C-alpha cells in the first residue's frame, strides 16, 4: 500500500449533501445517456484517479461493493484512498467487483470478465468507470436508445481501443451486461447497457 497520507486526505467536505449531488448527476446521466455532467466539488482523489471518478467512488461504493482496480491504480494511493473513505474492499477478481476503475491510456480489460448479471437478476452486474482524455473533443459518436429522444451526439478523445467492439457485444447480452461511465477530469457521461453506439457520419 502506498503513502498513507495520500490515502487519508480529500473526501467529501459535506458527505451527506455532496454524495447526494454526485448521485443526482449520475442518475440524470444514466437516464439521459451521453449527456456530459460536471462534478462541482473537489474530492482530492489521488492520481491517476480523476475527480469525477473519485467522486463516483465516494458516492456509491461501500463495504457492500467490492471494487476492482487496474494494476496501475493498485500500485498508486488509490486503493488506500477508496477503502479509507468508502469502506469498500479492493478485489483482484473482476467477476466479484460491483465497480471497476480504469485510468486513462490503459488497455481495456475484456467486459466479459466482469459480472454481467444473470438472466434472472441482470442487475447484479458491474459498473465500469473508465477515464478518457476528453469528452468535448475527439471521435464523434452517435447514441440512441432509452433516455434519448432520437439520437444524441457524443465526442470522446482517448476512447480505449476496442471499446466500440466490446460495447456491441455487451449490448447483445441485454438484459445482462455491464454499464459504463466515461470520465475525464471533473466531467463524466453515462452509457447504460441499452445504448446503441454508432460512428457519427461525416
Amino acid at each position, binding site marked *: 500500500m502506498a503513502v498513507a497520507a495520500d490515502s487519508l486526505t480529500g473526501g467529501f467536505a459535506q458527505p451527506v*449533501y455532496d454524495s447526494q449531488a454526485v448521485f443526482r448527476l449520475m442518475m440524470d446521466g444514466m437516464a439521459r445517456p451521453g449527456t456530459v455532467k460536471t462534478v462541482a466539488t473537489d474530492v482530492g482523489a489521488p492520481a491517476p484517479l480523476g475527480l469525477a471518478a473519485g467522486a463516483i467512488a465516494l458516492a456509491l461504493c461501500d463495504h457492500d461493493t467490492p471494487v476492482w482496480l487496474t494494476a496501475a491504480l493498485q500500485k498508486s494511493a488509490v486503493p488506500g484512498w477508496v477503502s479509507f473513505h468508502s469502506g469498500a474492499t479492493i478485489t483482484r477478481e473482476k467477476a466479484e467487483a460491483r465497480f471497476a476503475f480504469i485510468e486513462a491510456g490503459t488497455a481495456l480489460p475484456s467486459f466479459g470478465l466482469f459480472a454481467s448479471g444473470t438472466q434472472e437478476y441482470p442487475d447484479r452486474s458491474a459498473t465500469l468507470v473508465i477515464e478518457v482524455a476528453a469528452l468535448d473533443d475527439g471521435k464523434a459518436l452517435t447514441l440512441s436508445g432509452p433516455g434519448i429522444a432520437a439520437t444524441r451526439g457524443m465526442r470522446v478523445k482517448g476512447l480505449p481501443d476496442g471499446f466500440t467492439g466490446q460495447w456491441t457485444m455487451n449490448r447483445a447480452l441485454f438484459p445482462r451486461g455491464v*454499464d459504463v461511465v466515461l470520465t475525464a477530469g471533473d466531467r463524466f457521461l453515462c452509457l447504460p447497457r441499452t445504448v446503441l453506439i454508432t460512428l457519427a457520419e461525416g
Partner: protein
Amino acid sequence: MSDLATYNFAYLDEQTKRMIRRAILKAIAIPGYQVPFASREMPMPYGWGTGGVQITASIIGPDDVLKVIDQGADDTTNAVSIRAFFAKVANVAVTTHTHDASIIQTRHRIPEKTLLEGQVLVYQVPIPEPLRFLEPRETETRTMHALEEYGLMHVKLYEDIALNGHIATTYAYPVKVAGRYVMDPSPIPKFDNPKMHLSEALQLFGAGREKRIYAIPPHTAVVSLDFEDHPFEVQTFDRPCALCGAEDVYLDEVILDDKGGRMFVCSDTDHCEERRACGCVGELGVKQEAAE
C-alpha cells in the same frame, strides 16, 4: 432518550441511501426490470407508500421542490402526511404546482400537465409484479421475465375479451417497456398509461413491502398490451369537469345527495385550480376567488 429524535437528512442513513441509489441506477439501465432491494422499515406502514418514500428520500437534495399527490390530489390525507414528513426530515420546499416541482411522488395518478425534462415522477407501488395474479410464486414469475415468456398475460387479457367482449382491466394495466419487460405501472387508471410513453421525465417506481425498484428512463417506449383486433383504449368521460370545464382529463365522481345527484370533477386538483385561476368555469363552478 431525547437522541431518539435525531435522524439523518431525509431520514435514511447514508448506507441505506447508497444501496437504494445503486438499485435506482441499475433500474434505469434495465428499463422495466424490477431490481430487488433491501427495503427498510419506515416510520409509516407498509402499503402506505414506503417504497416511494424510500426512493424520494434517497434522491432528494436541499434544492429540490417536492410535490406529493394521492388520487391526483395534493390534499388527501396520505399525501399531506408524506409531504409533511419530508418537509420535516429533509427541510425541503414543497409545492402543489406540478410545473414547480422537481420531484413528484404519486399514488395512483399521473398529473394531467405534461411532465418536463428534469422532473422525476416517483410512484408508490403495492404489487410490482404484473404477473403476480396469474402466478403467485416469485420463483416462477422471475423465470418468466428471464425468458421473456409473457404468453400467460396475453391469455388472461384474451379471456377477458372472450368473456366480456373487451379487456376488463381498468387500472394497473400492464405495459411493455422498451420492447422487453412487461411492467406493472402501479394502480394508475389506464387513462394515464399513454402519459408514460416517451415522457420527458424520469419515472421511478418503489415497492417497499415487496422490496422492488424499477424505472422508465425519459424518451422510452411504453406500450400498453393489447391485440390487433382489440386495441388498447382509455376511459372516456361524456362530460367535462363540473368546476373548471376541462375535457380529456380524469374525473372523480362526487355524490352530492341521497337522491342520485352527482357531479364529476378533475381528479388532478392542481390542474383544476390552475384552470379556474385562469378564469375557466364548469357548469357548477363559480368564477374565481370562490375556492380560497
